């Protein structure tokens, strides 16, 4: 099963769609978790997810704001979406009947 951080990466990349690359996914994760996200940890996770076939990456266009360096574009595969869905179902199932189930449902950032 996916790890928590792996789920965050896949969910963020899926939400960003065609705009998903290293820096944008990191920004998305930081906005969601309200905590800092190490780029090194992100890239290690990307390598791991790609090795499992849950995402596909390719080198995108270089831009001046990146010092002329290319982006690593991320695309979630069908297997990745299945794995993310399975993770969410497991978390929801585990949460049923807990004291924070209803609290979590109304929680807004």
């Amino acid at each position, binding site marked *: 099963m996916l790890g928590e951080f792996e789920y965050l990466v896949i969910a963020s990349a899926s939400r960003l769609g065609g705009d998903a*690359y*290293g820096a944008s996914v990191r920004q998305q994760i930081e906005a969601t978790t309200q905590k800092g996200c190490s*780029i*090194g940890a992100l890239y*290690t996770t990307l390598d791991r997810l790609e090795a499992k076939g849950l995402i596909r990456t390719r*080198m995108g266009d270089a831009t001046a*704001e990146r010092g002329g*360096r*290319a982006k*690593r574009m991320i695309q979630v595969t069908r297997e990745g979406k299945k794995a993310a869905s399975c993770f969410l179902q497991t978390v929801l199932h585990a949460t049923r009947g807990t004291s924070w189930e209803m609290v979590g449902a109304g929680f807004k950032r």
Partner: protein
Amino acid sequence: MNRLVTVAIGLLCRLIRPDAREALLGDLTEVGANRFAVFGELLGFVARSKLQPWLSGRPWMLLAGITVPLALQLNVAAARLSSVHSVYVWMYADNWTPRYLSGGWLWSELIPMLLGSITTWLLLTAEAWAGGFVLARLSRGTVLIQVTVLIAFMICGQTVLFAILPLPVAAPASHAVLDLNEPVSASVFCTAVLPRILQAVFLVLPLLLGVRKGLQERRAETFVTTEERL
């Protein structure tokens, strides 16, 4: 300090694949990270990448099953050979006469001794090369640590072993023992320099060449597989 950090960043970049390096540095530039933040992020990435494979059992099996046993075996064999050859080197050097190169002595003693020594060292060389090649093929991302451990144990394996394991040590002799090779034992060249030279030439260098060959073949296979997919 800035210069030091820049040099450190350069060294870390060499340990990262070109595409990953470009994307990482690009992202760090985009978010406006300063030199120290770049160094920290790259160090974190390199450390995670190198340590990640060790979370599975395979590298540990390789370490315990091939790396350390091979290194210790080469260390013991090389130490014994060096010890014997040191005696012969001292003997011939100390008693050198051109008569060694003439007539019966050359063919009956010197040449067989040289051929025997060279053959034995070449066998160890082949073993070191094969060990390096196999490690490179099987390591998958842990080759740097595996080879470092192998070389370390190959050079000082016996010292480490006796320090770690509670092996029985022979009791000191109750009487003075005549050391027939005392002149060799007293020679720094014969006890320290010559063994290191032999280890470097016949073990360490072939090992590194074997590792290089193994890595080249693995990269070529990866390239062919990628080509087939495209």
